[in-house]
């Protein structure tokens, strides 16, 4: 029995996906787990795996097409089956933003069926569905919430009427919510929890992030990734001879939307302090010598922030309409610039990890981010963000809060400058830290206390060894 295959929802915030590339041809036999296409979401390009065995009878959209979640993209079935009825159905339920080729209309036109007139968003999908990338919408493993009995991401969603209505009101995608009711039914508390939980983090984007954007700078280094000290190469960006419009990628749209929300809806205030980095730089040197481990300044800061949050748990919190959620875990989002934009992989339980573990994990996450291999759960659920532009020579800057977190620490460069010590002017190392706080959660004195704690730890770096 032939079935329509729909655009899967591969992340919480995904509303549409770009079918980057089909990896199977029409007529190919498919086994469960086979990758049939690459799908670009707002966060990453992911493999789209088949869930059932069968034959890819018909591809309904062309490479590069942008397709709303839930809209049909292919027909699956047994060899030789008539697909005309399903093609007609697919036309009928094409999503609101009908599939269109990405890239300024330049790429090849999709097949006729993909240009069908717009209709209501696709209803629930049929039972036979490709499996979304593993755990794409599963809740964070670190969360102590009751284990979901089912996590329907496609097909019929079991949800109480109240949960459905509330999901609409709160803008929660009910298909991405794990139900804790009988049979996995999504109930009110699940929707409220989903609405209150940290939404998938995308881009705290420091306002000062260098963004020489454009198609030409594909080779630009990733300036926010610690340890990549490659100097920026502005010359790599060739000025176009005339004005051009660069099509918005999903990631760019997501960054824009979330940051606009953050800067307009969160009452930011900023606190800046200088850290005397002499001891920290010496400590880092010692550790590197003894362990041979590469320890970045950023690693020290991540640990210092985690310990600072542990001592100031009021700052490790989120504003929700229900109340301020104070987190039991300290998961730090780490802003990583990549060619296309910015990602925020999350380091879990940083306060409980050694500097060595932090260095290793931070590096691994940054690499994955650059390769766009981060899974959604590796980018969601941070409780605090760190954005570091020190390696770009930035002295200090104010970062935009990454909602629903309540604060972000902007880290400037470690600079040598004349300082007064024992009434003498000597060469000292200084680093500016700017904490952006959500005033609804963190008041001035509280933010100052957190910053003071972090500064104190960095100035007495032996603390970091514990």
């Amino acid at each position, binding site marked *: 029995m032939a079935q329509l295959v729909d655009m899967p929802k591969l992340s919480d915030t995904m509303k549409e996906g770009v079918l980057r590339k089909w990896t199977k041809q029409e007529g190919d036999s498919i086994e469960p787990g086979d990758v049939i296409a690459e799908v670009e979401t707002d966060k990453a390009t992911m493999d789209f795996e088949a869930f059932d065995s069968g034959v890819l009878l018909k591809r309904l959209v062309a490479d590069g097409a942008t397709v709303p979640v839930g809209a049909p993209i292919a027909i699956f079935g047994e060899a030789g089956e008539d697909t005309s009825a399903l093609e007609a159905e697919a036309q009928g339920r094409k999503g609101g933003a009908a599939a269109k080729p990405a890239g300024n209309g330049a790429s090849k036109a999709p097949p006729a069926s993909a240009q069908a007139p717009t209709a209501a968003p696709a209803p629930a999908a049929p039972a036979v569905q490709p499996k979304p990338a593993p755990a794409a919408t599963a809740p964070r493993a670190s969360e102590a919430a009751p284990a979901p009995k089912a996590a329907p991401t496609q097909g019929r969603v079991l949800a109480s*009427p*109240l949960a459905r209505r509330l999901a609409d009101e709160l803008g929660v995608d009910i298909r991405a919510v794990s139900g804790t*009711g009988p049979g996995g039914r999504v*109930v009110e508390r699940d929707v409220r929890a989903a609405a209150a939980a940290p939404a998938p983090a995308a881009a705290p984007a420091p306002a000062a992030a260098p963004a020489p954007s454009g198609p030409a700078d594909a080779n630009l280094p990733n300036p926010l990734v610690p340890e990549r000290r490659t100097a920026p190469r502005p010359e790599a960006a060739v000025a176009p001879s005339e004005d051009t419009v660069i099509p918005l990628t999903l990631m760019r749209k997501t960054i824009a939307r979330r940051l606009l929300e953050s800067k307009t809806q969160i009452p930011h205030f900023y606190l800046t302090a200088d850290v005397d980095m002499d001891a920290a730089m010496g400590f880092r040197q010692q550790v590197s010598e003894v362990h041979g481990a590469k320890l970045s300044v950023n690693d020290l800061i991540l640990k210092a922030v985690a310990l600072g949050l542990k001592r100031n748990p009021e700052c490790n919190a989120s504003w929700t309409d229900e109340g301020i959620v104070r987190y039991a875990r300290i998961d730090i989002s780490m802003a990583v610039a990549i060619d296309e934009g910015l990602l925020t992989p999350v380091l879990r339980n940083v306060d409980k990890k050694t500097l060595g573990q932090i260095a290793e994990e931070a590096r691994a996450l940054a690499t994955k981010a650059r390769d766009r291999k981060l899974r959604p759960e590796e980018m969601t659920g941070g409780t605090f963000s760190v954005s570091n532009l020190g390696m770009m020579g930035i002295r200090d800057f104010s970062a935009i809060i990454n909602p629903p977190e309540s604060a972000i620490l902007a880290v400037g460069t470690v600079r040598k400058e004349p300082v007064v010590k024992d009434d003498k002017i000597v060469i000292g190392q200084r680093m500016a830290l700017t904490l952006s706080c959500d005033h609804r959660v963190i008041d001035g004195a509280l933010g100052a206390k957190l910053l003071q704690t972090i500064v104190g730890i960095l100035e007495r770096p032996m603390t970091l060894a514990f």
Partner: protein
Amino acid sequence: MRTVQFREAVREAMSEEMERDESIFLMGEEVGFYNGAYKVSQGMLEKFGERRVIDSPITECGFAGLGIGAAMVGLRPIIEFMTWNFSMVAYDQLINHAAKTFQMSGGQINVPIVFRGPNGPANQLGAQHSQATESLFTHVPGLKVIAPGTPKDAKGLLKSAIRDNNPICFMESEVMYGDTGEIPDGEYTIPIGVGDIKREGSDCTIIAWSKMVKVALQTAEALAAEGIEAEVLDPRTLRPLDEDLIVQSVKKTGRCVIIEEAWPFNGVGSEIAYRIQSRCFDDLDHPVERLNSLDVPAPYHRQIEMSIRPNAEKAAKLVKKVLYLE
């Protein structure tokens, strides 16, 4: 405010109305000389005399029919059934005559009559005398059914019932007659068809009437100790039903448990549940749950009898179920 027993509240309502209107009379088994089987009409024979407080033989079909006839010709009878269980032999009178005459006479003949008495099981009365009969009467168009849960509601509603021009089934409970409660000083009435929130809450609506109001309040108290705030809604009148109040409450809480002493099948609770799903579908987080007596004739043995009845413990379990806590 005065504190009175439920039986005193019923008596006050009847006496005050009989003083006000000479066309009202009380008839039933042992209502006069014996002061009522449950002492509801104590002193009324002395006060109003034999013409207005009339002892009848054990003939429910007869005295119910006589009352209906009297109502048709302009009197306002109050017919006491010693218990609603005995109304079964007068069922034809209530259903076919009291309920239908207004319509069948083209609106020419009113039947302003109140049938009242204890409803529901008491203690160890055996299967034939231990049943909650409200659904038998709410089923019938033309009858109004009232089931108050407090002395205050009983007095206010009975006065409204006596003044109403339609046949009314007024259901008390013999285990409630000794319950006490505050009632307002002076004259007051409570309109028929208006429910009452007996306790405010935000997490779940518990609907209960008559004797079960007490169970609902106990349930809510026990749940409050666990941080669950249940709202207790007493419709007071089962037909007409204060549907708007129910809808308003369920929309607020998103969950509903109905406690009903009667059997589950075709009960008043089923009707309420239907109306809730019909009007509150998008507000429900869990299907409406009902707690009834078990679907069996009442056992005589005390322990077994108690085990088939609704109680606060069972109700609390259901509330937790609709909150997905159990």
